[in-house]
């Protein structure tokens, strides 16, 4: 049986766990912990500390694994391990929190240095009233025109499907 993997990365609280949860056929194996520091506690209660793990079975001999990285920098020793052998990656951005944009860009560059695989950027939480538009995000994050920057609502399965499909199209294109 062949297994392939994709990595879902992005800053703290950007929606990585939610993204995988929306599409995985198994309950996401997450290693979320309750948050102990008060600054982050204000934002959310549980964070991913090692990784999230989701699965999509194609047939008897092909399985896709989705790995979500921990969002907090102090767990970034996991990143390089997770990125090994990945087919591509998704960078999740919380479009409603400009204070995280710089971090998102820095994570993007870090992963790009790990492996020359295709990637897409997901402008997540587009349903949020404070969300920046994908066009504004592209300029704010200085994403080159040839990189896909896709609107996303991670709690909506159709939206997650679209992001993964776009990544797969890019992977296919690259093989041609």
């Amino acid at each position, binding site marked *: 049986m*062949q297994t392939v993997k994709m990595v879902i990365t992005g800053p703290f609280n950007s929606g990585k766990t939610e993204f995988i949860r929306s599409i995985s056929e198994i309950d996401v194996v997450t290693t979320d912990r309750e948050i102990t520091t008060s600054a982050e506690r204000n934002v959310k209660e549980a964070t991913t500390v090692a990784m999230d793990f989701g699965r999509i079975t194609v047939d008897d001999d092909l399985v896709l694994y989705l790995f979500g990285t921990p969002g907090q920098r102090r767990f970034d020793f996991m990143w390089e391990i997770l990125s090994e052998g990945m087919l591509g990656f998704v960078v999740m951005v919380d479009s409603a929190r*400009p*204070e995280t944009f*710089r971090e998102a860009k820095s994570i993007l560059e870090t992963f790009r240095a790990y492996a*020359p695989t295709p990637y897409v950027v997901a402008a997540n939480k587009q349903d949020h009233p*404070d*969300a920046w538009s994908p066009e504004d995000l592209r300029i704010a994050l200085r994403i080159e025109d040839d990189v896909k920057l896709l609107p996303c609502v991670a709690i909506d399965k159709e939206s997650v499907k679209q992001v993964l499909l776009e990544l797969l199209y890019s992977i*296919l294109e690259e093989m041609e």
Partner: protein
Amino acid sequence: MALKGDLKDFSTTQLLNLINLARKTGTLIIESSDADEEGNREELAQMAFREGKLIHASMVEEDGHLANILHKAGKLTEAQAKLISEKAASMGDKELGLLLINAGYVTRDDILQSVKQHTLDVVYNLLTWNEGHFRFEDGMMPPDDRITVPIDLENVILEGTRRLRELEQLQEELPNLDFALKFPDRPGTSLRDINLSVDEWRVVSFINPKNSIRQIAKANNMSEMEIRRIVYGLLQAGLVELVRPPSMVQPLNGRRGPERPKIKKTVVTRLIDRIRSL
């Protein structure tokens, strides 16, 4: 769709860059809570843009009426300005402007230059604010009676970065001097319309995807800080873009990048079909 946040995370220069590149129309409202000697003070500024050009700017607490602007520019005496403000209190700027021109007090050019200078004064002052909230109101325009003068943002941004004091920011915005520079592909403003300084021209003359920023600095005998400031300004003004030089595309130091997974095209097409069917 919102465009709002805090200047700590996204500076005024970066906002101007965004508005310029996205050719936005609307009003940028900035509220500062910078403390001064007297303690906390709220300041409110508004800048209006049409298709990416600055057309008007005002500080809410300041008298932005034409009589006052002309007085500030030395085109009217204090007594004249005061008299006009009293007599023509209800008159719009456009109407007042015509009246002053017809009466021979000022020329049309005096008015346009003074309004332009006033707008720039407000914006340059704004560029020094480090704290505050901003929001962009799409489509919002200044009141109809105001005189607007379109100003290209590239020059404003360049001038703003020349005045930039926060040098740590440059370090963050441009961490890697091994990148090279290129001119953007999109048809934009021509360099001819931009007022570049001598040092900026020296940098521009070396722009080529093969020259790293570090090499350009060396060729020009510039310090890291000098080159950072100039490149940052050119980037923010949208006049240049970062590119990876050929040496960076291959893994450096003879270190081999991780193996790419070897998979067949059919694997990808099967994945696509499966996800479509979910």
